[in-house]
């Protein structure tokens, strides 16, 4: 008996088919991965299974029950649970309170906290993972919060669990922990479907992989019988180069951006960076590796003027930049592709061409004197949209209406087009599909080869290894040392990321789960 079966399911948004005649059966206890580019229809398909959308034609059946999944409530009743990419938790409440929220165990009409805690412990123990029911959600990490979501679904009787891009916001270690949880669920007879962009993890965790492209399910393959190259070809419809190194075409030149023993505080007033020194040179990519929360965010803000140093000096091509405004940093030729695209990178309620002008909106071709040059802006936006393949190619669209990958292309197009000396790039490919990732990576290499200095701050070690000419590992706001990108040892980097110096022997299998 299949856990979930789609039979000729189609779904239209306007004239566009988001799902076109999808038929698929997922077996009980199976770990099924759904891959595809942004907008291929993965999330739409899962939203149909979870009752958020109704298909325009075709049928969806859960555990062979002849019932229509009209709403998430119905889906939950039928044993379907979904963990969204953005968690739906109440931060000030405890783990247990979050889990039982909406169907609380009661005692004398009051919430029975003890029963709730016991329930959480029981569920976690049954599937072999740890979770402290009394911890406040705001105080636990992203990986733990995800577990809370999973336990929440299981508590509501989920037999089939849908995870939407579960590792998009996780560190490698947290992702490994998640895979363990997923395998445990499968071993206990639960069915897990997850959407992912990361083919390596898909291949190592899933039993079967479904590939979607433009609303169609183009292939379903056994994970054991395929490889990343074959999958990405299916996704894109053509062969794609993977994350391969291509070293700098020229020798690194003069220092374009340098930090000299810089210290800074985080938002809560605690030291975030301690006497950090680094140099970004002409024609090289300096990558900052590290586990999230070790000062990366503060470093990005520091070198773009968004955060002030408490000690030390920042120089751009020799000019003293310490204490300067974000505008001064931009004018000194430092561009910024921020980690938070939607908040810091874009004005979502504004048009694409306006977003492409942002930051250089006072200069031609975007302005003439104090007035906006609408036609000049449209023209430049049009050529950038073409060059960076921003889709749909419509400059008057609101940035909000673009997919994540295309939003990132807008930011990248704007920052590169400002012809900076230094590009500060933070998490440039998080959540993007393979096609977009290779586009971004190729572009960064090209900019490096054109002589720009690139400071890449990324949590994705694969990305760091693929792009970096030099790698600086950040731990606790300090530099753990620099290694050359050429032939860098992943294990040694992993140890440095956990605060051990590169020469210390591995304590145990740190990175592998």
């Amino acid at each position, binding site marked *: 008996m299949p856990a979930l079966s789609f039979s000729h399911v189609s779904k239209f948004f306007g004239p566009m088919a988001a799902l076109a005649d999808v038929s698929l059966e997922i077996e009980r206890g199976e770990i099924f991965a759904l891959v595809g580019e942004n907008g291929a229809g993965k999330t739409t398909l899962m939203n149909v299974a979870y009752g958020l959308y109704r298909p325009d034609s075709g049928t969806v059946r859960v555990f062979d029950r002849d019932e229509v999944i009209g709403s998430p409530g119905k889906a939950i009743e039928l044993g379907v649970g979904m963990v969204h990419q953005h968690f739906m938790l109440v931060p000030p409440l405890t783990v247990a309170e979050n889990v039982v929220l909406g169907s609380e165990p009661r005692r004398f009409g009051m919430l029975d906290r003890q029963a709730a805690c016991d329930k959480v412990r029981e569920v976690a123990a049954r599937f072999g993972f740890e979770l402290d029911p009394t911890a406040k959600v705001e105080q636990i990490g992203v990986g733990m919060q995800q577990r809370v979501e999973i336990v929440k679904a299981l508590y509501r009787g989920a037999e089939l669990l849908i995870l939407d891009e579960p590792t998009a916001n996780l560190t490698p270690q947290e992702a490994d922990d998640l895979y363990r949880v997923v395998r445990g669920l499968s071993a206990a007879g639960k069915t897990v479907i997850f959407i992912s962009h990361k083919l390596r993890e898909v291949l190592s965790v899933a039993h079967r992989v479904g590939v979607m492209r433009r609303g169609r399910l183009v292939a379903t393959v056994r994970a054991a019988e395929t490889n990343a190259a074959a999958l990405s070809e299916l996704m894109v419809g053509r062969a794609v180069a993977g994350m391969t190194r291509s070293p700098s075409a020229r020798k690194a030149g003069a220092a374009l951006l340098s930090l000299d023993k810089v210290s800074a505080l985080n938002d809560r007033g605690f030291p975030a960076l301690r006497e950090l020194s680094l140099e970004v040179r002409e024609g090289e990519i300096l990558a900052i590796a590290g586990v999230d929360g070790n000062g990366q965010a503060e470093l990005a803000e520091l070198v773009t003027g968004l955060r002030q140093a408490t000690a030390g000096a920042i120089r751009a091509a020799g000019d003293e930049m310490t204490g300067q405004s974000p505008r001064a940093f931009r004018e000194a030729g430092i561009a910024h592709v921020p980690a938070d695209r939607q*908040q810091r990178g874009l004005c979502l309620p*504004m048009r694409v061409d306006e977003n492409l002008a942002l930051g250089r909106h006072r200069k031609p071709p975007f302005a003439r004197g104090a007035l906006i040059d609408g036609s000049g802006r449209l023209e430049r936006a049009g050529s950038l949209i073409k060059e960076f393949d921003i889709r749909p190619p419509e400059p008057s669209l609101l940035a909000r209406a673009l997919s994540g990958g295309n939003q990132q292309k807008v930011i990248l197009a704007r920052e590169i087009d400002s012809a900076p000396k230094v590009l500060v790039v933070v998490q440039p490919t998080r959540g993007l599909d393979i096609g977009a990732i290779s586009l971004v990576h190729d572009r960064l290499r090209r900019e490096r080869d054109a002589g720009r200095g690139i400071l890449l701050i990324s949590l994705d070690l694969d990305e760091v290894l693929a792009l970096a000419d030099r790698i600086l590992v950040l731990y606790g706001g300090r530099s753990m040392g620099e290694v050359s990108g050429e032939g860098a040892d992943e294990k040694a980097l992993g140890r440095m990321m956990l605060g051990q110096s590169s020469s210390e022997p591995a304590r145990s299998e740190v990175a592998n789960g």
Partner: protein
Amino acid sequence: MADLGLRQKLFGPSRHWLLVPVLSVLAALAICFVAIWLTGKDPVQGYAKMFGGGLGSLRALGDTSLKTSILTLTGLSVALAFSVGLFNIGAEGQLVVGALVAAWLGHAFAPGTALIHIPIILIAAALAGAGWASIAAWLKVRRGVHEVISTIMLNWIAIHLVESWLVVGPLAARSTQSQVSLPGTAQIEATAELPRLMGEINLGLPLALGMAVALFVLLKWTTAGFELRAIGASSEAARASGIDVARRTYLAMALAGACAGLAGAILILGVHRQYPAIFHGGYGFDGIAISLIGGNHPLGALLAAAFFGIIRAGGTKLQLLQIHRTFPELIQGLALLLVAAQMITRHLLTKVAGRAPQGKEAIDA
């Protein structure tokens, strides 16, 4: 799928900014129509009287133009602050300060010709309003004080400072009449009185119109306006792009205060000719409704102000049919409610249409 086209037009991403306000006002008119009918009166006659009373004669147009100009200016005040994402509840206080300055300069100084007197008073009143609003901007930028809190508090400070002290104390007219009546400030000079076009139309109307167009141009076509809108869209992204958020916040609040201050000056120079002891306020608060109904858009505020100027001027005529004269305010309140509830009504209508709201992937190409 036939309904999809219309539904997308109404609720899709491309819907026009005017659509929700216009639909809301029409719905409010319809609801009041039914309400009047339910009370046993004749709504057709009532509406005819109301619109006739607002537009039917030169005199009516005079009253309408005055109300429209004041509502436009206070509406602009709120809309402009909204452009940088600030909620200016303080138009009332800024109006009071502007009105006081206008009343004081109207009699304290007499250059002999209206051509000098009136512009000076208008500029001074605008500056006074701008200054008052800048206090809230300063508190916001330097101390992080939420502008809703500070502007509400500044309203009361202005009202009490002006009406409980200055107008009855230091600036009170030296009256030879009875001690019990409260005289307000001294009458303004003749050179300070706003001339009326065709004998009735208040000069405030072209002024308000010009302001609305000027602010529209500012927001849409200047780099400064672009920066204001960028801050309103995402102050975080604006800051990262090098925009001086603090400076632009001052600019927006100062302009907002200037609009409200001008409204105060027009009330004094065009109607009261002094700062009266009992000042019928509330226009500043009306500005919030006007701005919201007008989609926080300068031209939207102008249209909303014109509409409510008409029905308010004509509202008193409703009494001829024994319909209560507050119906125009009811219409305004309902329209505001419907605009504010647009997310709810949109949600309900989409549910009726049987389709979930636009998903993330729906817009992907």
